[in-house]
Structure formats: C-alpha cells, structure tokens
C-alpha cells in the first residue's frame, strides 16, 4: 500500500461524497488527456477517451486495491481506453504518410508555437504507437519507468529499451525532416 494523498479523497468518494471525485478529476485531467492524446492524436477522441476512463475508474473505485498510486491505476485505465478507442477508430487503416499529413495540418493550429515543435510532432508521428506512448509518458516527468511499465502492462526493462530505441529513431527522423539544417541534428 502506498502513501498516496489521493487515497484520502478516495475514502471520501467511497463514503458517498461524489463531488470529492471532481478534485481528483481536476488534478489528473491534464495527464489523462495527454496520454489519450498521444495515443489517439485527435483532441476530440482523446477528450472522450479520457472522460470515459475517469467514469470507468469512478465505477471501479471499490475494486482498486491501493497497491499502487491512484494516478498510476487511473492512467492505466486511460491507456487501455485510448488503445481500445484507437482500435475502433478508422484511423488505424490510414497509412503512415496520411497520418503525418493529417497531423501536420492539425499542427497548424494556434497551439503550434514553433517549427521545432511541429517537426518534433511529425517525427513522433512516424514512430510506432508503443514507442511513441512510452516516450511521451517518460517525458511527462512525474512517471517513473516502473509506473510506465504498470500503465502499459509491460516490464520496466522493456520500457527502458523502448524509450532508448524510440529516442534514437526519433533523432534519425528529425535528422531526415530537418535535412541537417536546424538543431544541428
């Protein structure tokens, strides 16, 4: 059992204080949404998947054994929900080139602050889903390799190898994209 401050809020929710759950949603929504977004690469679907995950988590709170942090358990639900959305989504039938084009078009939104970020997104989109997700989770900073392993249902060593491999591949993709011009890549 961990010393997770969220567990106190969970006790309140389980005692019938439904509104207490709102504070948990507020606290973890950005991470949950980011995880779903990294997998689905579509804001609308990611929002729906993340909301769905929070609702699933709420209805299975009694079954949460508190062996891990609430956030780790929640993110695993988000991960699985997003993967299941991805499977249902027609996007999976798109080839990688189409995905990159769609991605860069979306990238022209106001959210794109620099070319570097756009190139990074394009390069990330070229990675396979498992590598991209592991890498994204790793750079969310708060998550340890063990937590990422728990969320993705893999071994910590596998996650480490995946992250290393993804970064090297990403470096190569960026190098290709930037044609040796920017970032000294």
């Amino acid at each position, binding site marked *: 059992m961990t010393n997770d401050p969220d567990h106190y809020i969970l006790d309140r929710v389980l005692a019938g204080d*439904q*509104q207490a*759950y*709102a504070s948990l*949603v*507020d606290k973890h*929504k*950005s*991470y*949950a*949404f*980011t995880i779903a*977004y990294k997998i689905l690469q579509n*804001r609308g679907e*990611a*929002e729906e998947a*993340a*909301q*769905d995950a*929070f*609702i*699933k988590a*709420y*209805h299975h709170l009694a079954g949460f054994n508190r062996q891990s942090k609430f956030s780790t358990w929640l993110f695993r639900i988000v991960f699985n929900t997003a993967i299941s959305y991805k499977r249902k989504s027609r996007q999976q039938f798109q080839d990688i080139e189409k995905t990159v084009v769609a991605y860069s078009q979306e990238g022209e939104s106001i959210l794109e602050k620099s070319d*570097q*970020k756009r190139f*990074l997104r394009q390069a990330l989109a070229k990675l396979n889903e498992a590598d991209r997700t592991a*890498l*994204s989770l790793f*750079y*969310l*900073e708060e998550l340890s390799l063990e937590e990422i392993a728990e969320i993705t249902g893999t071994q910590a060593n596998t996650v480490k190898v995946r992250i*290393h491999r993804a*970064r*090297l591949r*990403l*470096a190569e993709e*960026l190098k290709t994209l930037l044609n040796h011009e920017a*970032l*000294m*890549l």
Partner: protein
Amino acid sequence: MEKISPELEEKLLDYLDGSLRGAEKESLEQQFQQNPVLKARLETLRTLHQLLAGNNLEQPSKNFTQQVMLKLDQYPRTSSLSIRNGLLLLTGVFVVAILAALMVSTGMFDNTTSVIDLNKIEVPKPLEAPQQYVQEYIQQPLPSFEFDGKLMVNIIICLNLVLGWILLDRAILKPLFKKRMQMGH
C-alpha cells in the same frame, strides 16, 4: 565517420537521463573530451532531450471536469437494452404467454398426449447393420416416452413468465429507479 556503438549510445541516453553515476559517469565525461564524434552525438541527443522535455502537457477543454461529473451516473453508457426495446420485448413475451395460456384453457392441447416408442423408430439404412447386432446381442427393449403437449406448453408459459420478470427488472424497473434517484439529487 566514426560510428558509435549501440551500447555507448545507450550510455549517452542514461547520462542525459541522469541515471549514470560514479566512475561510469566520469569515464564517459572523459571520453567526451577525447572523442569529438561522441561529443557531437551527445549534443544531438541533448537537443532532442530538451525538445521532448519541453513537450508540455496537453490541456483538455475547460469543462472537462464538469462533463465527467455529469456523466458519472450514466455508466454503463451504452445499455444493451433500451427502455423502449425492453418494453417491446416484454410486451411480446407476455402476449405469447397469454395466447398460450388461452389456448391451454380452451383445451386445445388436451388430446396431445402421445407415446414415443424408440423401438418403433425406423433406423436409417447406413445404421441397419449395427441395429441388427444390437437386437441380436443385447436383446433389450428401448424405453418409450410419454409426450404431453399440454405440459410442454405450460412449461413454455412458465419460462416466458420468468423471462418477462427478468426483462421487467433489467430493462424497465432498474433504469426507472436510477432516473428517479438522479432527479432526487
């Protein structure tokens, strides 16, 4: 151009992640001084590392928490049976049960009792030979069954009524009470 081994690249990434310590870290730092190719690779990966680290959290919509809290009581979101379909099915089940009960009460199935004698059943040609052996060596008469049509219809009526009660509970009463509870909140 000198190629960096995968093991060394892994060490570079560990160095950037801050997981390399002690003598191993010092040894690598010394190699940076002596090997410009390695140093250049470190800078490339450091740039990538910084880019990824600056890849901030995505923010969901402003009413994300509100949406989740509104949907909490709607779980499971997609009921396999809607109230309307449940009502239709329930009506069908009861109509069949009532019709069958009326037919039984008018005496339609009173003379439907018959005896099924397995010894009188004609054996298909390919099985004739084994049947001869059975009669010759076993010499045991096969049992006969009494088929009561009225009893069968009564059993069907009972099963229909049980099914009807289950449907009434699952498709109508439960969602109805749930709705009332939500309205009471």
